[in-house]
């Protein structure tokens, strides 16, 4: 074991220094931006002195204290960012539910069928997974315009579900393979149909894998920019396209802090997600890998 041989002090110091450097690199940008989002623009983007962003000199002059929530008020109240937050919630909720429902059925079937076509279906899914979603968008636009489907949330939801499927299938396939086949086979022997076996035997034990997959579906829907920005109209925008839209207007109007506040607001749910589901995220990331 490693403990039997003492780590030399110099090596240990080197490792710790390297880790501290990495943690700074990983976490400092977030802390800095959260802190800066409560300042005025001239502090966060300071020409005179970079320490202004910490002490908030100009914020003190403008607002009488070192903190201001003007950026948040501008984003959430004046620019009605809450509408986009609601849209994001709707999109994420329905994308996760739908893609898990049809993905579990498909992934279960893939894991329990020994036929050749399973291999080809998985390879096809891998190819679909590799394609940048934005390459598909020009294929969506003409029919969506023609049938007047463009711009609405349900359209974006269905597209995101479909784009999500290849990944969901791969992940659930590997989770279902870990559930022993004997379970549903003995149910079949007892006279259940395949669907009953799935319903009464597999569903009660599949939740850990499904929750992990659901987290990644959520992340895909939440983080998407390419598809939602192209398929949603101005009123139905989710948060991420709205932030991009802020950028276009705020650089000219001089209220970048609205965008900073919106960015921080959009990071908070992800922060909480990692905090509560760290174990599932780690296991999900490695699920595909450990098989090789």
């Amino acid at each position, binding site marked *: 074991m490693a403990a039997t041989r003492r780590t030399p002090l110099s090596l240990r110091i080197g490792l710790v220094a390297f*880790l501290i450097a990495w943690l700074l690199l990983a976490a400092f940008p977030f802390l800095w931006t959260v802190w800066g989002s409560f300042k005025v623009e001239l502090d966060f983007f300071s020409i005179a002195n970079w320490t202004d962003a910490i002490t908030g000199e100009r914020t003190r002059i403008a607002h009488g204290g070192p903190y201001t929530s003007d950026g948040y008020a501008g984003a959430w109240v004046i620019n009605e960012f809450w509408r986009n937050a609601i849209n994001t919630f709707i999109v994420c909720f329905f994308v996760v539910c739908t893609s898990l429902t049809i993905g579990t059925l498909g992934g279960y079937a893939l894991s329990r069928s020994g036929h050749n076509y399973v291999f080809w279906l998985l390879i096809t899914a891998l190819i679909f997974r590799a394609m940048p979603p934005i390459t598909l968008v020009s294929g969506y636009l003409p029919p969506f315009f023609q049938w007047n489907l463009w711009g609405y949330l349900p359209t974006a939801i269905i597209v995101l579900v479909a784009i999500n499927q290849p990944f969901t299938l791969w992940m659930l396939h590997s989770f279902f393979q870990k559930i022993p086949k004997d379970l549903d086979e003995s149910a079949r022997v007892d006279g259940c149909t395949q669907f009953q076996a799935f319903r009464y035997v597999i569903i009660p034990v599949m939740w850990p894998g499904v929750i992990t997959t659901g987290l990644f579906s959520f992340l895909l829907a939440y983080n998407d*920019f390419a598809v939602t920005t192209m398929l949603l109209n101005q009123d139905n925008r989710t948060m991420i396209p709205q932030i991009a839209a802020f950028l276009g207007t705020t650089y000219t109007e001089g209220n970048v802090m609205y965008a900073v506040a919106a960015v921080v607001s959009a990071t908070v749910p992800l922060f909480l997600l990692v905090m509560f589901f760290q174990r599932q995220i780690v296991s999900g*990331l490695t699920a595909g890998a450990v098989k090789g």
Partner: protein
Amino acid sequence: MKHRTFFWFFLPTALAMLVFIAAPIVSVVIQSLFVPHEAVLVETENCGPFGCTKSTVIDQEATALLSEEQPLGRFAGLEIYLDRGHLAFSDIGEAWRTSDGLGSFFATVLDLPFYDALSFTLSYTFVCTPLLIILGFAIAVAVNSLSRQIKGLVIFFSLLPMIVTPLVGSLILFWMIDSRGVLGNLISYLANDPDLSLKASTPLMWIALFVYGIWSSAPFAFVVFYAGLQTVPQDTLESAQIDGATRWQQIRYVVIPHLMPLVTFVALIQLMDNFRVFEPIVGFNAQAHAKSLSWIIYNDLGGETRQLSAAATTSVLTILGVAILLSPVLIRTWRDFRGSS
């Protein structure tokens, strides 16, 4: 499982993928072969008391009729593929004949929009992928040596750059390296050049984008390698120690060979993801210095004039690029499959 049962279980997901992935691909290929109709122009002569004037007007009826007869537009074959915005073979030929050296030839070619974007996309893919694998591996080895209590906290912070939305992550970095941001100030202080600005320099912008790419994807490599490190066979390590292997030799000859399949996995996923690089260019507002293939598609699709044919053509070329990147893996999988059956 019977074919019939399999079919019903698999039907919903298959339908979703057929309608919203497979069909759009076909449609994109078709669109790339057609150009929109030009308006039908008619020349009319108006004769008045002061002589005759000729005017050209759009014949609305004929235009509508034409687009009804051929809704896809005029068949153009490979015309769009060969135009200046895409493969531009004739411009390359021209450059080859007229330029007086390889340097100026490449400079001319890289000015063409498609090759400009392709060169950035490929540089990004092949610079970021190896570097993030090395960084991820180093973090994994370092974290593995920590005590159990701190590990959780370190993993939590390490995950953040990867989990956060790409557009949001790139904006957060961009605001810091802005010439008025904290890192921008630091860089211009270190370089002793108060006017140094990222937005004005192409090489600096490329480096910043590469840094973003490594920053945002190293955590993925880290987590995968960290999980792999837990499965390194302890008795092999012990026998290596008894044989007098140094720490570095243990990593080089025991740990790295054990993790090799994971390296392939991470490299594959990251090649696919880095090839679609898009959000950082929007977030960094970098289109003046760096364009990627995805960004070109986005740019063609956006705005008032949606240039569907141009976007579709770039999309097809991008998909071909992904196919070429993936082909070694696909060929290997196919061989394995044939060998095993």
